[in-house]
């Protein structure tokens, strides 16, 4: 019994040490590890608000899709790894996150300008403006594969007829701002303003281009409603400070638990390491972006995770004082304290969920780590801490209770 428990504990300590050693390089890998938010590596966060046109036309979902497609296309050109472009249809907003961008000023400049669609000759001379294009839709043509169908306004149809006549057999370019979107060859003269661009390999490709072509006559202009820019070295600085804060916080909590709870304190500290690993792996699994507030939430959740241990150990101490054997005290301490722990932490969980649902950006990051932290500490306390404490008690149930921080004489 005794020897087996010692062996189990040794194996466990080694296993956790190995897990830590393996996890740290994996989780902190800049490309495949937990992604860092722009406040930790520099970058810019933009909320672009669509403004209704002068004619007072309401903004449609299609407008927002167009805007999003253009912005996404431009963002991709900036060469940012893992950019985020989201549309908020209810509030007519586009949210852009560019973490780790080298030149945020240029990025903002590029994103701000409105897209201009033009049709140009092979030399790049502008032949007609995109606002004479009425519609562009992707579809599947039975004989031609995936295509984009263009419809011009009556005036545009006339111009387009002239263009196709002049450049028959040549390639004309469809440009978004100064970039070629596609350059189809003119096969026939198109007199009625109904053209078809063929040769797309997937419907998605055709749809992407179609949306951008439609956007040429985009009625919405965008203003910057929110902008958060963090310089690269400032981000790195914040990351180091946060890691430092985490290490010192953890070290002092470790020390506190050791002094007050002795042997179970060691178990608690050990459980904290397992807890931290679980939280970080869950964050990694969810592709959650770690922000400055997220780290603050994580450090705070470490402080709260110990709560479980304290509540349980105080209960175990009480049971020992009431004359129970160590083993019985641990068993009933755990089962009694469990209800307390659940009641106490459901309330914090309610907060985390409320914050996550109603919060935005940085607050959500905080709520996520806090929420995952609470669930993970519950899990660790029931499974890990309990089992390890059983083994420890199993080594020698006669252990002096001083090791458990209890003086018997009271």
């Amino acid at each position, binding site marked *: 019994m005794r020897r087996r428990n010692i062996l189990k504990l040794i194996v466990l300590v080694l296993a956790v040490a190995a897990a830590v050693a393996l996890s740290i390089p994996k989780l902190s890998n800049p490309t495949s590890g937990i992604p860092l938010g722009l406040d930790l590596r520099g970058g810019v966060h933009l909320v672009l*608000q669509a403004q209704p046109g002068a004619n007072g036309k309401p903004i449609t979902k299609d407008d927002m899709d167009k805007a999003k497609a253009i912005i996404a296309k431009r963002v991709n050109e900036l060469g940012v790894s893992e950019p985020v472009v989201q549309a908020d249809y209810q509030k007519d907003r586009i949210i852009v996150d560019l973490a780790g961008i080298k030149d945020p*000023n240029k990025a903002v*400049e590029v994103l701000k300008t409105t897209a201009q669609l033009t049709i140009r000759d092979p030399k790049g001379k502008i032949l007609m403006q995109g606002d004479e294009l009425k519609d562009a839709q992707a579809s599947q043509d039975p004989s031609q594969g995936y295509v984009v169908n263009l419809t011009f306004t009556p005036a545009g149809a006339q111009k387009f007829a002239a263009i196709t006549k002049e450049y028959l057999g040549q390639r004309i370019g469809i440009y978004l701002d100064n970039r070629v979107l596609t350059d189809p060859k003119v096969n026939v003269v198109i007199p009625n303003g109904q053209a078809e661009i063929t040769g797309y390999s997937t419907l998605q490709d055709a749809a992407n281009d179609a949306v951008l072509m439609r956007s040429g006559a985009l009625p919405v202009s965008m203003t*910057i*409603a*929110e902008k*958060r*820019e963090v*310089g690269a070295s*400032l981000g790195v*600085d*914040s990351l180091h*400070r946060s890691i*430092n*804060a985490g290490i*010192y*916080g953890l070290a*002092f*909590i470790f020390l*506190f*638990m050791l002094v007050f709870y002795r042997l179970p304190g060691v178990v608690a500290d050990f459980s904290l390491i397992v807890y931290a690993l679980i939280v970080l792996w869950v964050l990694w699994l969810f592709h959650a972006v770690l922000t*400055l*507030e997220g780290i*603050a939430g994580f*450090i*705070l959740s*470490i*402080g*709260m995770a110990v*709560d479980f241990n*304290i*509540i349980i150990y*105080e209960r175990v101490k009480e049971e020992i*004082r*009431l*004359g*129970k*054997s160590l*083993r*019985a005290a641990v068993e*009933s301490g755990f089962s*009694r304290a469990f*209800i*307390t722990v659940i*009641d*106490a932490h459901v*309330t*914090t969980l*309610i*907060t985390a969920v*409320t914050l996550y649902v*109603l*919060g935005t950006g*940085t*607050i959500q990051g905080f*709520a996520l780590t*806090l929420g995952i932290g609470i669930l993970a500490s519950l899990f660790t306390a029931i499974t890990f801490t309990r089992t390890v404490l059983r083994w420890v008690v199993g080594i020698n*149930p*006669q252990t002096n209770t001083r090791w458990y921080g209890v003086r*018997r004489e009271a």
Partner: protein
Amino acid sequence: MGRKDVNRRTGKVGPGNGAREGNSPQARNGRTETDGRPELSVEIAQSGQSGRKDGSKVPAGSRVSGQGTVAPTPAAQGASYEQVQKMHPLYFNIVKKRYIWFALSLLVIIPGVISLFTRGLNLGIDFQGGTMLDITFNKPTTQGAITRTLDSVGLSGSVQPSNGNKEVLIRTQALDEQTRNKLLAALQSQVGPYDAGKLQEDKVSPEIGQELTHNALLALGIAMGLMLLYITIRFQFSYAISGIIALVHDVLVTLGVFSLFHWQIDAPFVAAILTIFGYSINDTVVIFDRIRENEAKMKRGDSYEDMVDKSVWQTMRRSINTVVTVLIALFSVFILGGASTKVFALAMLIGVFSGAYSSIFNASQILVEIKTRLSDSPKGKPSRARA
């Protein structure tokens, strides 16, 4: 959970441990043990303290076993009031002195609330909208130089130098990109070159700011409602009300202190207030949980006040230690963490500290007030002890 379950469970565990014989505290303390259970006499001797004059009266609530010992197993009965008092060297009757604690709380809250109404909170750009630029210049500069530069591009705002006058925090109205670039160019030419890698800029339009304020209030309302509901379900309505009053106390203390010192608040402050909300009730629940447990064990004639006082002291160590670990975590974020988490950590520090105070000194005391005022005989046992 009723105590009958507990008895049964501990009964099952009890016989299994032969190890008890050697280090049983009762044996060492010279108490007699029958059947592995403490004698009733111990129980009664102590209960004289707790309001019952007649020591010989067998409490109606306890069961008499065949062996002549009354009282359930030690774990189910828990420590007596006197034992709990002896265990804490600093013991004093917290419940009896409750009006002192209420007064102390009001002493902090009233100035804070007056300040909230007269001066309000120092709202940052996250709430009001505006642009905030944090610029680190290569050489130290002066506040005047920055203000003059702002003037030269037709802007006004607050300028706050720090870090040996090298770092400057500028707050203005929300700037469009053109004006912003003009300002940065002007700063570069009139004040000197700055480190682009350390530039931080936050711009929030007034509309977004209003949304944040609205969402914050909504989140507070929803969280409060959900907690009231949860505690009512898990405990009783009177517990829930007491807990929520303690919560409002913590939020008012934090808001009040921030208003009094006119510290600027931003979006993370909302997260801090809500976390205080969730965490401070957590503390209170730990005590309430013990009151609930002890309330179920109360016998006829037991004083509710004494029971609560006992419960508060029984959980004192937990209450303090759980808060200490969280305070350790917060202090490390406050001292070592990044600038933007400082306000968050500060608010949390105040809130968690206040939460610990209100959990120990206010919440249970309010519960006593409610319970004793609602029942006809103030010292009597409340009608609804949960089984």
